[in-house]
C-alpha cells in the first residue's frame, strides 16, 4: 500500500474543515442552495431521491484493512448500516444527513480518505487494474502511476473547471481489467523495443449517451514525459472542449469532431512548448514508488497440497476456486475475488458487518490489502494458497462466498431509479431477477463467463454499453422498459454493444435475456464462450430469438 505523507494528511484535514464551514453557512442561510450546490458537489455530496448521498473516492481501488474498518464504522454511525461499491472504484453512502457530513469527513480523513473530485467537471478518481501488484500478467504495477495522477490532479487549479468530467484509468497488463479504452484517457504501461518503460495512451473513450471506444493518441510515450503530455492533452481539451452543450462536452466528442490526427497534432504542439517547464514525472514517480511498501511475501512451495486435497474433496470449494481465484505473480499465493453479488442481493452493497469482516480477513489472509473492482466486487490480492480453504469458509459464513465471479449472476448494476435522481428506470430489481433465474451453480458453470451490465438511464453508470449482454432502463409513457444491447466488451478488444431492437417491459426483460442464453447454448461449440459465439454469429440468431413472437 502507498504510505501517505503529512502533506496528504493536511490536505484532507483542511478540506474537511473547509466543508464544515460551508455547511454551517448553508444551514444559517448565508449560502442558498444555488451557491451551496457546487461546493457540496466538489466534496462528492449529492442530494438524491431520498437523502444526501456521499461518493467517496477509493484511489485506484485500493483499501487497507483500517480504511475498510472505517467505512464500516461510517456505515453504522452516519448511514443505515451499509455502503454501495460503484463501477468506478468508489463507495457511496445513500442515507446521510447534511449536518453530520462534516463530522463524517473528519472521520474519513483519519484514514487518509476523502470525497474530493468525486463529482464535478474535474479529473475524477483515477482507477486501475484491481489485480495490480499481484497479477502475473502485468509488466509493471500501475498503482504508482495512478497515485502520481491522483497527486497531480488533486485540486489542480487549471483543471478544476473542465468542460465536463474527466476519467482516467491505468493498467500494467495487456489483459485489460480497468476498461482503459472506455475512459477519457486510458494508460497502458508498456516497454519499447529496448525495454524502456513508457505508456501507450488512448483518448476519447467513454460511455453515456454517446458511447465511444478510445483511440491511440500516442503508441509509446517515455515514462518521464507523462505529466507534460497529459497536461498538454488536458490543455487542448480545456481550450477547445465544448462548454455550450453538456452532451457534447466530453473529450470523446472533441477528438471525434477534430479527428484524431488533428487532435494529436495540437497536443504534440502544446507538449513541445511545455515539456521543459511541466512537472517532471521521473523524480516524482520514483518517490511514489519508494512509498509503495513491497508486501512481505513468504517463500512458499510451488505446489500446495492442502489446496489440492480440498479442491478434490469439496466440489463447492473447487467451483469457487475455479471462478473466483486467479494466479498470483508470487509462487504459493493467489488472488481471491470476493463476490458482492449474492443471489438476489444488491450488486455492490456491503453491510457494515461485512466490511469489518473483510477488513479482518484482509489482515489475516491478504497482507491487509483489499481492492475494489469496476464490477462492484472486492479482491483480496495476496492470499497464500494454503489459506484459500479457510478464507472460503469464512466468506461463506458472511454471505460473501458466492462462486460467481465473471459468471452470469455477477450482474453489474447502477443504483437506478430506486435511489438515483437521474435514472429513468430501476436496475437493481432486474439484476436480482436475472441472478435468481440463473442461480443454479451447475447452469452457471454450463453457461460459462457472461458479463451482464445494467444501467437505469442513458448516463450508463452500470456500463451497459460494454456488457456482453447490456440492459438499458428507460421510461415510456410512465412505464419502465428495457433495451437490450449485445456484443459489448470492456477489455482489450473493447466494443460498444449493438441495440437489439425494441425494448421489453420489466416483466418480460428477464425472459428475453434467457432467450439469448438459450440461443447461445444451442449454437455454441463445446466450451465456447458467449463472447466468442457472439463474434462468430453476430446479432442475427440472438435478435431472432429475442423477437421470435413478433
Amino acid at each position: 500500500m502507498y504510505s501517505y505523507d503529512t502533506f496528504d494528511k493536511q490536505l484532507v484535514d483542511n478540506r474537511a474543515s473547509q466543508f464544515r464551514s460551508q455547511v454551517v453557512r448553508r444551514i444559517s442561510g448565508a449560502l442558498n442552495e444555488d451557491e451551496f450546490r457546487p461546493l457540496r458537489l466538489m466534496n462528492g455530496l449529492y442530494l438524491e431521491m431520498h437523502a444526501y448521498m456521499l461518493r467517496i473516492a477509493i484511489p485506484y481501488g485500493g483499501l487497507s484493512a483500517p480504511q475498510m474498518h472505517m467505512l464500516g464504522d461510517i456505515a453504522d454511525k452516519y448511514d443505515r448500516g451499509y455502503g454501495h461499491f460503484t463501477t468506478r472504484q468508489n463507495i457511496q453512502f445513500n442515507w446521510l444527513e447534511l449536518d453530520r457530513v462534516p463530522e463524517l469527513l473528519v472521520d474519513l480523513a483519519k484514514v487518509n480518505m476523502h470525497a474530493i473530485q468525486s463529482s464535478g467537471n474535474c479529473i475524477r478518481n483515477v482507477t486501475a487494474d484491481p489485480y495490480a501488484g499481484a497479477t502475473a500478467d502485468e509488466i509493471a504495477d500501475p498503482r504508482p502511476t495512478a497515485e502520481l495522477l491522483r497527486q497531480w490532479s488533486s485540486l489542480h487549479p487549471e483543471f478544476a473547471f473542465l468542460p465536463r468530467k474527466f476519467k482516467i484509468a491505468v493498467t500494467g497488463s495487456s489483459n485489460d481489467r480497468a476498461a482503459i479504452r472506455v475512459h477519457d484517457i486510458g494508460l497502458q504501461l508498456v516497454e519499447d523495443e529496448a525495454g524502456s518503460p513508457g505508456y501507450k495512451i488512448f483518448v476519447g473513450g467513454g460511455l453515456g449517451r454517446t458511447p465511444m471506444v478510445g483511440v491511440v493518441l500516442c503508441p509509446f510515450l517515455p515514462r518521464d514525459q507523462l505529466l507534460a503530455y497529459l497536461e498538454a492533452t488536458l490543455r487542448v481539451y480545456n481550450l477547445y472542449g465544448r462548454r455550450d452543450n453538456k452532451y457534447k462536452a466530453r473529450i470523446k466528442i472533441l477528438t471525434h469532431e477534430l479527428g484524431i490526427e488533428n487532435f494529436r497534432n495540437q497536443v504534440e504542439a502544446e507538449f513541445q512548448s511545455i515539456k521543459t517547464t511541466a512537472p517532471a514525472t521521473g523524480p516524482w514517480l520514483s518517490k511514489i514508488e519508494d512509498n509503495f511498501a513491497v508486501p512481505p511475501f513468504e517463500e512458499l512451495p510451488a505446489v500446495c497440497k492442502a489446496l489440492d486435497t480440498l479442491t478434490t474433496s469439496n466440489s463447492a470449494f473447487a467451483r469457487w476456486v475455479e471462478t473466483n481465484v486467479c494466479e498470483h505473480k508470487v509462487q504459493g499465493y493467489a488472488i481471491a475475488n470476493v463476490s458482492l453479488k449474492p443471489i438476489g442481493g444488491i450488486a455492490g452493497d456491503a453491510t457494515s458487518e461485512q466490511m469489518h469482516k473483510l477488513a479482518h480477513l484482509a489482515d489475516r489472509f491478504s497482507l491487509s490489502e483489499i481492492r475494489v473492482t469496476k464490477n462492484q466486487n472486492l479482491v483480496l490480492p495476496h492470499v497464500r494458497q494454503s489459506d484459500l480453504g479457510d478464507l472460503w469458509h469464512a466468506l461463506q459464513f458472511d454471505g460473501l462466498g458466492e462462486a460467481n465471479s465473471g459468471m452470469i449472476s455477477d450482474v453489474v448494476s447502477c443504483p437506478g431509479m430506486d435511489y438515483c435522481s437521474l435514472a429513468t428506470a430501476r436496475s437493481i430489481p432486474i439484476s436480482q431477477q436475472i441472478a435468481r433465474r440463473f442461480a443454479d451453480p451447475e447452469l452457471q458453470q454450463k453457461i460459462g463467463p457472461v458479463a451482464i451490465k445494467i444501467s437505469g438511464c442513458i448516463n450508463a453508470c452500470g456500463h451497459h454499453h460494454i456488457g456482453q449482454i447490456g440492459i438499458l432502463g428507460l421510461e415510456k409513457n410512465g412505464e419502465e422498459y428495457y433495451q437490450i444491447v449485445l456484443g459489448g466488451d470492456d477489455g482489450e478488444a473493447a466494443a460498444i454493444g449493438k441495440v437489439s431492437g425494441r425494448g421489453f417491459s420489466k416483466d418480460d426483460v428477464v425472459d428475453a435475456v434467457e432467450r439469448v442464453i438459450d440461443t447461445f447454448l444451442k449454437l455454441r461449440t463445446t466450451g465456447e464462450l458467449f463472447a466468442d459465439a457472439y463474434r462468430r454469429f453476430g446479432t442475427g440468431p440472438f435478435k431472432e430469438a429475442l423477437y421470435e413472437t413478433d
Partner: protein
Amino acid sequence: MDKPERLSTAKILTANDLHSGGVVFATAHGDWSPFISQALLSDDAVTNERLETCGQHAVERQLVVEPFFIDVSIENGLPRAIRFREQLRVNGPSVQTAFSKPAFREVA
C-alpha cells in the same frame, strides 16, 4: 364570487428536507411532513398559489430544498403519486423494504 379555477389533476407540493435530505410534503398547516397522508391536496389555482408561497417561504427559511408539485390521484382517501418515479420517492426504494416509508405516522 367566482369559483377558483379547477386543475385537471390534483397536486401536492413536495421537497427534500434541507437537513436530512428526506422527502417531505407541504401540509395544510403551512409546515412539512414526511407522511404523504398529511400533504395538502390542491385541485384549484388558489390552493396551488398558497402552496407555492409556502414552498418559497420554506426555502427562504432554510427548511427545504427545491420544492415542486407532483400529480396525484386519490386512492382509499390518500394521495397517491401518479408517476412511478414519484411513487418510489414517496415510498422509498423498492428493493430495500426495510427502508420503505409509511404514509401515516406509525403509532408506537
